[in-house]
């Protein structure tokens, strides 16, 4: 019996995970492997003159690697080639905790001791940590003006003068400045990687989201061709974007150490190091102006987004891109201007984290919509419903929305379950007076790569029939989101076989085609679509062969017969074909930014303790249109996980920099929500199918992250009567605002 797509079949890796048999990188057999450690800069900006190795230390069992040992290009290739694998001797150091040198030794204790015995000599240069200061161009860290990337989107107007005229003619204008904080992904498995060399070929295995990103980065670094390095993903204990680009850096480090040491080298980061040195969510300052006409319709929106990119470009242009493309929100507006800049500073580089720019700008626009509702005395949800985009409307980039727009369904779901708002005042269990409030928000998230990105990626996936078994081969990595289970279901349904007959192979660049990275809410929608087509093609070919050979039986039996007769596996590799109607202009940033959007609405109830100023989140409901839930339990789990990360970002989490270094670089002080901090989360799955996704599915991984922070801020405003426009809405910030809320 084939369980249909849409069933919550148990995860294929579930038993392995609950029994502790799933092997993460640090669990893998590593007999004879040495341990690596990293020498990191304590200076935020300077020139690396060289190293002194402590003569009192016994170096006989230690391998040391510096930039001088790199025989290829000292660069971690991503969008640009500005970030070195190791700060070049004689060149610049650009942030605290930047990797300067590497050591490997037979034990971790010896490796740590050796790293401490390498003393870098750095001539300091003035650093810059403030974005406004960096925009003066002094000191110059990147290009000619410290701007990694900027965007300008115009809709419905051709000049700034025309934009201002639209504002001048408005009935009401609301503006605000919204500041969001950096956020640590806090995957529970720290970054981990292992490398070995055999006959000139480098084998790297580790915790990662994108084996082919690592592969692409290793080729110029190791000066090898595509066959010269093999990248394999090990079972990965969480990523959330934090293992999108950073693993290439760690892979470079273990590869270099293994080469020089002449043996396998493994590096597993301590938690403190992981927090201090790896990428965080981009902190962001968004100024947002909106205007409504006499009828209460939006007539102009003007957004300016400025992000701190940190010391190297990494993925900043794409984070900014997604941020600006979502900045005007899911609302109808004829005149829109969005400007964005991501700026270089001497902070450690910021990078990918679930939502990828959209949470930052969503916070801004949903706070603005809240203010509009308050100003107009209009019900918060009714206002969203009135102004929201639907099929037939155009977005800020002029995209005409067609299919799969779940606006009305998600808003109706929240309306339907909202119930009575919390009683505005009360006393809590500690005897403290409390004020309670409710907040809502409505938001969207583009699924897949922007514009022509998917075409450029040209992802491929394969399904193979090998005897009586079927294999899915893609580079998508299961990082907890259940992609292996989801592909199993999709392939089994398309083949018409039991999921037990399908295996999803571990992504290794020597075994699977490049399906594109495991990011951007594309794994189900895009790669799942490729898997579905490949599976259908395999089935078609097997059935055609069976008819030719006059063989009857189940597909498994036919496949066995095929293998016996043809003595080969039957593999179908399918490449990406864009759905019709995706026209995108990269130069003007107009057209169809994403093939399709997810839609969501969120309701949050809060209780503010007036003695401690702590915000307790007492209720949180998310209604999310996912197109089709291939596996409802897995989709629910994704939504709930993303929701709690957003709630944590709203009130509890922060990355605090002190002179360019992460001050709270341990789990004690860089906190995330515990079981006790989380409310019971309510999830309403909505399905408005996307015709070009497998069984109608579109992306879900990121959307739940985008909205809840705004809903929390809206709820706190409802409770206290004044605006909170900076994240986190910490007890300290509420205490500091007391004169504003006591007055209201």
């Amino acid at each position: 019996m084939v369980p249909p797509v849409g069933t919550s079949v148990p995860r294929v890796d579930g038993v392995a995970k609950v029994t502790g048999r799933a092997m993460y990188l640090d669990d893998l057999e590593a007999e004879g492997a040495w341990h690596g450690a990293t020498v990191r800069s304590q200076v935020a900006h300077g020139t690396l003159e060289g190293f002194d190795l402590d003569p009192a230390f016994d170096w006989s069992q230690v391998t040391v690697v510096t930039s001088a040992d790199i025989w290829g290009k000292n660069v971690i290739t991503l969008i640009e080639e500005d970030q070195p694998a190791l700060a070049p001797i004689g060149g610049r150091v650009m942030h605290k905790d930047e990797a300067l040198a590497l050591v490997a030794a037979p034990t971790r204790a010896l490796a740590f001791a050796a790293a401490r015995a390498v003393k870098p000599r750095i001539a300091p240069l003035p650093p810059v940590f403030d974005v406004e200061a960096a925009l003066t161009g002094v000191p110059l860290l990147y290009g000619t003006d410290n701007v990694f990337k900027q965007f300008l989107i115009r809709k419905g107007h051709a000049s700034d003068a025309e934009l201002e005229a639209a504002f001048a003619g408005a009935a009401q204008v609301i503006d605000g400045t919204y500041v969001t904080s950096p956020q640590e992904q806090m995957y529970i498995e720290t970054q981990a990687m292992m490398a070995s060399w055999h006959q000139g070929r480098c084998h790297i295995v580790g915790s990662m989201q994108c084996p082919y990103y690592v592969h692409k980065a290793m080729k110029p670094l190791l000066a090898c061709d595509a066959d010269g390095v093999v990248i394999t993903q090990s079972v990965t204990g969480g990523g959330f974007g934090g293992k999108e680009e950073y693993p290439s850096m760690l892979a470079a480090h273990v590869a270099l150490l293994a080469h020089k040491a002449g043996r396998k080298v493994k590096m597993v980061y301590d938690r403190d190091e992981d927090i201090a040195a790896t990428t965080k969510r981009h902190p962001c300052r968004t100024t947002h102006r909106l205007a409504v006409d006499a009828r209460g319709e939006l007539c102009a929106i003007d957004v300016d987004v400025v992000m701190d990119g940190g010391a190297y470009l990494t993925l900043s242009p794409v984070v900014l891109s997604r941020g600006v493309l979502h900045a005007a929100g899911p609302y109808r507006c004829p005149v829109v201007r969005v400007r964005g800049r991501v700026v270089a500073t001497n902070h450690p580089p910021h990078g990918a984290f679930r939502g990828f720019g959209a949470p930052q700008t969503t916070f801004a626009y949903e706070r603005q919509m809240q203010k509009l509702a308050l100003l107009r005395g209009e019900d918060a949800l009714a206002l969203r419903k009135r102004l929201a985009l639907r099929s037939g409307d155009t977005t800020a980039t002029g995209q005409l929305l067609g299919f799969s727009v779940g606006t009305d369904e998600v808003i109706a779901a929240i309306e339907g379950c909202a119930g009575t708002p919390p009683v505005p005042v009360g006393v809590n269990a500690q005897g403290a007076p409390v004020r309670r409030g409710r907040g809502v928000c409505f938001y969207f998230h583009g699924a897949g790569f922007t514009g022509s990105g998917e075409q450029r990626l040209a992802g491929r996936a394969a399904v193979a029939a090998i005897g009586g078994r079927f294999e899915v081969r893609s580079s998508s990595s299961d990082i907890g989101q259940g992609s292996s289970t989801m592909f199993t279901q999709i392939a089994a349904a398309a083949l018409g076989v039991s999921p037990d007959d399908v295996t999803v192979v571990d992504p290794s660049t020597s075994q699977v085609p490049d399906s594109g990275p495991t990011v951007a809410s594309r794994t189900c929608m895009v790669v799942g679509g490729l898997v579905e087509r490949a599976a259908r093609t395999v089935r078609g070919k097997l059935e055609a062969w069976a008819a030719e050979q006059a063989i009857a039986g189940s597909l498994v039996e036919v496949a066995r017969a095929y293998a016996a007769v043809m003595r080969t596996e039957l593999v179908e590799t399918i490449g990406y074909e864009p759905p019709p109607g995706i026209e995108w202009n990269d130069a003007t940033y107009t057209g169809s930014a994403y093939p399709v959007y997810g839609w969501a609405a969120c309701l949050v109830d809060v209780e503010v303790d007036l003695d401690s100023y702590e915000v307790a989140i007492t209720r949180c409901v998310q209604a999310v249109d996912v197109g089709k839930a291939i596996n409802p339990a897995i989709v629910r789990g994704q939504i709930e996980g993303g929701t709690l990360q957003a709630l944590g970002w709203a009130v509890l989490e922060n990355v605090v920099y002190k002179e360019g270094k992460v001050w709270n670089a341990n789990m004690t002080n860089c906190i995330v929500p515990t079981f006790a901090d989380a409310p019971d989360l309510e999830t309403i799955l909505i399905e408005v199918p996307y015709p070009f996704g497998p069984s109608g599915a579109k992306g879900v991984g990121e959307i739940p992250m985008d909205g809840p922070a705004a809903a929390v801020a809206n709820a706190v405003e409802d409770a206290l009567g004044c605006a909170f426009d900076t994240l986190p809405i910490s007890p300290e910030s509420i205490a500091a605002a007391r004169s504003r809320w006591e007055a209201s």
Partner: protein
Amino acid sequence: MTAYHRPRDLDEALALRAAQPGWMVLAGGTDLMVNANHQPVPDGIIDLWRLAELGFVRISDQAIAIGAGTTWHEVERHAAIRERLAPLAAAAREIGALQIQARGTLGGNVGTSSPVGDSLPVLLALDAELEVASVRGRRRVPYHAWCTGYRTTQLAPDELIVAAHLPVPGATTRTTWRKIGTRRAQSISKVMGAAAITLDGDVVVEARVALGAVAERPIRIAAVEAAVRGLRLGEAGEAARLALRAAIRPIDDVRSTASYRREVAENLVARFFAVS
């Protein structure tokens, strides 16, 4: 290699402590083992975990004596402690989480003497007395004299903490405790306080008010204790708030700000003296 010894009784432990004052005295390890792989390797370990003479709760009419080796689980579960020393049970419930409460001990909290030690303001407010021992004998130290500075105490290099003796508050004494941490569990205190308030009707006869996380050690606030004497609940709260203002100088740190700590400490202290 690190030496290791698990004494069979207290005398053996004391002899070893006197002989090896530099060895690590280890019970639950919830503090001493943090980031163990990055700590200097100790020369030796004196393992006091489950040493019988340190694991007890003894009830008398006047006081409850709790052995230094008693874990927070054991404190929290003990009916007499819940009933008569409620703030200590409350503190026990909010230290870390389950796994920490199963190993963390009263003696460890007292010995580490962190400014944010969760049980310490309770010991101050309940006017506890510590019992310490060495080969030279035993002595008692009022807890209010125990902390001499930042993470420094009266413990001599050859001494071990044996027990805390807590007088049972009288029927007219209301006790209270609150911790404000960074989150709902597994949290470090930003501000915490405990109070024992003896009332005559609704008039404050006497109060002991202690705060943690607002100084380099847990402290009693003499100014508050003086200000509330003779006042009715309610008014006493406002007097306490005002008296506290000048009495503490909390700091900004990685977890919170001085102004937040000051404001919340005032709210806490005022709440202690609220009309119930």
